[in-house]
């Protein structure tokens, strides 16, 4: 077909849009949609895309890098450190167990030991892209299944470095002969002795950590100050590209580096801003990656030996599943969590493409063997969502335990999410009080100086414009119970209110307002929880004045409560009255009129009804009257 970039772009985009929306309508994961699109546009169905599929794959792998950067952003160094045992333990058991079983399998099938070893390495790795995408889509990251999957995948990301270093040792040919085939993987450090290589790897990790703290964050602050939004997108990509390049330089996996960079930045105030900036790109690139996987399924190879391929495919999925189930069992996961883990990581991952073609380049694998394994890899990835559906619809309902019922009590603070917009004097008081009750609100503020200062004081504050849907979404509005708007800018509260009404009507919206005038406006837009910043403070002052004059405090307290109720009622009553066209020139005059209206009402109704309880004079009067009567 035509090699025009425009044409290819149109094919990919159209394929994605059509197939993903069909998959979504059928209630399936978007991954299936992308894979199907890849198969359709690939060389064996419509043939829009030929061998360029593999080049696209290289580009699309960048989606995985961005994804790991984003995952890193969500994991703070503290949590990462807490997870170290699960990462090494679960990951080690999974990789070791799978390698052992698949090595036995391929030896039994009559493969040479070197080939068997390389293939078993590839088989041990699962697909971060598919597994994490599905976990995130279902919102299961917080579950033990989610964190176990993540730990295992992370361990695989680390172990793959050693695998890539180990494979050349299996090569029969000397290094110079294979150089042309492995040019992709040569790097700066190849000539160096092993000690220096290790040193530079450690050094580059240190570079990422130090640069994250002292270079990237200050840069982001400068960028934020300019207020030019697209600069932030540019900065985000600069970070990810920079880390990837550095990692490739020293021969580490770019995904691992990106993950580290993400962890370093997860403590910064730009966490949510970076997330919301990269999220759409990530999804699209991952989509591209899945399509490339779909397109790379070589149907001719399948047609040549369908039974062999089908048999090995099933055997691999089963043996991976068994190892995962045992791993889950050793780490005491509940039955449903074990099943989820088993089903979601039982595929061969994208690293297999890298490992296999690397080994092929070193002449360890033959063309046939590589083609077969690539097909099996692509097929196993395509099968994952289907296995997941079978587990979810047919197996899990029978095992009796349900995800939602299993959440322990201490997760309440986590599941009942609060978003606090605006962290000035008003918002910070709210934040402090919530925090004193163990409720950590997600705080958004657009003043990067203040954000910086407050973060130094130990608050979790993020920089960004809260009226943007994507920022609210990455702050977690979808799972939020309450959004608090603690700024008195009516434009902000109106914009957020609109987003909530249209997209997240289940979220409670609680708003600070400057005055009665703004309160009218918000009331008329259907907002219920409105807090006028001046009402209670001014009444407290008035109460103290009256107390100093000799009025009793308890009585004043009750009167203040009565007054607030009365004032709220009349506010709501007056807001329903038809209003003239708003004219800002007359706004001041109108406010005076409003005040007059209120004062008149105060007199007409008698500001507060007097309590009769405990009033012995009143009782005495009534008693005397009845005596006389």
């Amino acid at each position, binding site marked *: 077909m035509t090699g025009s970039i425009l044409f290819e772009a149109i094919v990919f985009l159209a394929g994605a849009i059509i197939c993903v929306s069909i998959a979504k309508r059928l209630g399936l994961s978007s991954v299936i949609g992308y894979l199907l699109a890849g198969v359709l546009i690939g060389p064996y169905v419509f043939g829009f895309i030929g061998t360029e599929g593999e080049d696209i794959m290289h580009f699309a792998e960048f989606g995985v890098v961005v994804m790991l950067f984003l995952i890193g952003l969500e994991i703070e160094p503290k949590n990462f450190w807490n997870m170290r045992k699960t990462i090494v333990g679960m990951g080690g058991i999974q990789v070791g167990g799978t390698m052992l079983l698949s090595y036995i399998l391929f030896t039994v099938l009559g493969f040479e030991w070197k080939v068997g070893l390389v293939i078993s390495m590839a088989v041990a790795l699962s697909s971060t892209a598919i597994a994490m995408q599905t976990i995130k889509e279902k919102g299961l990251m917080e579950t033990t299944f989610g964190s176990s999957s993540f730990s295992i995948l992370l361990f695989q990301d680390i172990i793959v470095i050693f695998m890539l270093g180990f494979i050349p040792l299996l090569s029969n040919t000397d290094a110079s002969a294979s150089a042309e085939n492995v040019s992709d993987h040569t790097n700066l450090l190849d000539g160096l002795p092993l000690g220096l290589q290790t040193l530079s790897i450690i050094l580059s990790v240190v570079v990422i950590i130090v640069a994250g703290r002292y270079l990237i964050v200050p840069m982001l602050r400068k960028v934020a100050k300019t207020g030019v939004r697209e600069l932030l997108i540019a900065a985000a990509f600069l970070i990810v590209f920079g880390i990837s390049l550095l990692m490739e330089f020293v021969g580490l996996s770019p995904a691992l580096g990106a993950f580290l960079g993400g962890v370093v930045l997860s403590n910064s105030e730009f966490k949510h801003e970076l997330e919301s900036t990269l999220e759409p790109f990530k999804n699209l690139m991952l989509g591209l990656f899945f399509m490339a996987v779909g397109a790379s399924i070589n149907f001719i190879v399948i047609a040549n030996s369908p039974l062999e391929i089908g048999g090995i495919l099933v055997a691999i999925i089963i043996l991976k599943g068994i190892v995962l189930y045992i791993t889950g069992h050793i780490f005491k996961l509940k039955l449903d969590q074990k099943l989820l883990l088993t089903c979601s990581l039982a595929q061969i991952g994208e690293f297999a493409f890298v490992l296999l073609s690397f080994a092929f380049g070193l002449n360890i694998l033959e063309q046939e063997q590589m083609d077969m394994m690539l097909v099996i890899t692509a097929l196993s990835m395509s099968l994952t969502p289907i296995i997941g559906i079978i587990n979810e619809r047919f197996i899990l309902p029978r095992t009796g335990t349900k995800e939602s019922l299993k959440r322990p009590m201490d997760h309440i603070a986590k599941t009942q999410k609060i978003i606090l917009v605006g962290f000035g004097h008003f918002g910070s008081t709210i934040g402090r009080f919530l925090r004193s009750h163990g409720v950590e609100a997600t705080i958004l503020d657009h003043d990067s100086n203040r954000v910086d200062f407050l973060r130094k004081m130990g608050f979790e504050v993020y920089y960004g414009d809260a009226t943007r849907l994507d920022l609210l979404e990455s702050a977690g509005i979808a799972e939020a119970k309450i959004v608090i708007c603690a700024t008195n800018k009516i434009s902000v509260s109106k914009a957020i209110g609109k987003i909530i009404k249209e997209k997240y009507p289940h979220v409670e919206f609680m708003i600070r307002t400057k005055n009665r005038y703004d309160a009218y406006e918000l009331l008329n837009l259907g907002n219920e929880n409105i807090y006028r910043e001046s009402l209670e403070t001014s009444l407290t002052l008035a109460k103290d004045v009256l107390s100093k004059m000799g009025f*009793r*405090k*308890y009585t004043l307290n009750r009167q203040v409560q009565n007054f607030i109720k009365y004032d709220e009622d009349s506010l709501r009553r007056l807001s329903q009255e038809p209003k003239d066209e708003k004219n800002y020139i007359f706004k001041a005059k109108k406010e005076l009129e409003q005040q007059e209206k209120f004062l008149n009402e105060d007199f007409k109704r008698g500001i507060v009804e007097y309590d009769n*309880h*405990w*009033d012995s004079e009143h009782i005495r009067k009534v008693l*005397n009257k009845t005596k006389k009567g």
Partner: protein
Amino acid sequence: MKKILILFSHPKFEKSRANTILVDHVKNKEGVTFHDLYEKYPDFHINVKAEKELLEQHDVIIWHHPFYWYSCPPLMKQWIDMVLEFGWAYGPNTNALESKTCLNVITTGGSKELYCSQGSNSFTVNQFLRPFEQTANLCGMTYFPPFAVMGTHNLDDEDLINHAKQYSDLIDLLQQDYTLGDFNGCAFLNDIPELNNA
């Protein structure tokens, strides 16, 4: 001289003629701490630590309150609930309040005749005050009979002033370590001979 603590509870003091007159006669006496609970804790947020310290500094505790619905006002009940803690006021090995004296000073709208088995209130004031008596007992305090100004709806200012003077005299007696064994069989401190000799 014994130190006297008057814990005064009245949600609508400004409207009470009887209690205004009573309080005026005692609140500024030497050695008397007049503690106005509704003014101190209008939001019912009692400072338990401060209240305990106050109790420790005094020998005689007076619960001064109007008698409404046969009991005390809610803030005073709140005070009892919060301040008289287990492990401090009562319970094993506690003696914070031991050997202190405690009594109720009350005002009632209805007259004494209504508070008996034949009257419309069916029970005597002393019977209604049993929970307070037992509270004091449990805390190891000596509970005295109440000082009660009754039938306030029918009393004029002059009557009330006389009651108030008697209240003041009672405080004087209590300051001199008043330890009457049997109160001469009086159900009310108002009736003891020491306050009726003049």
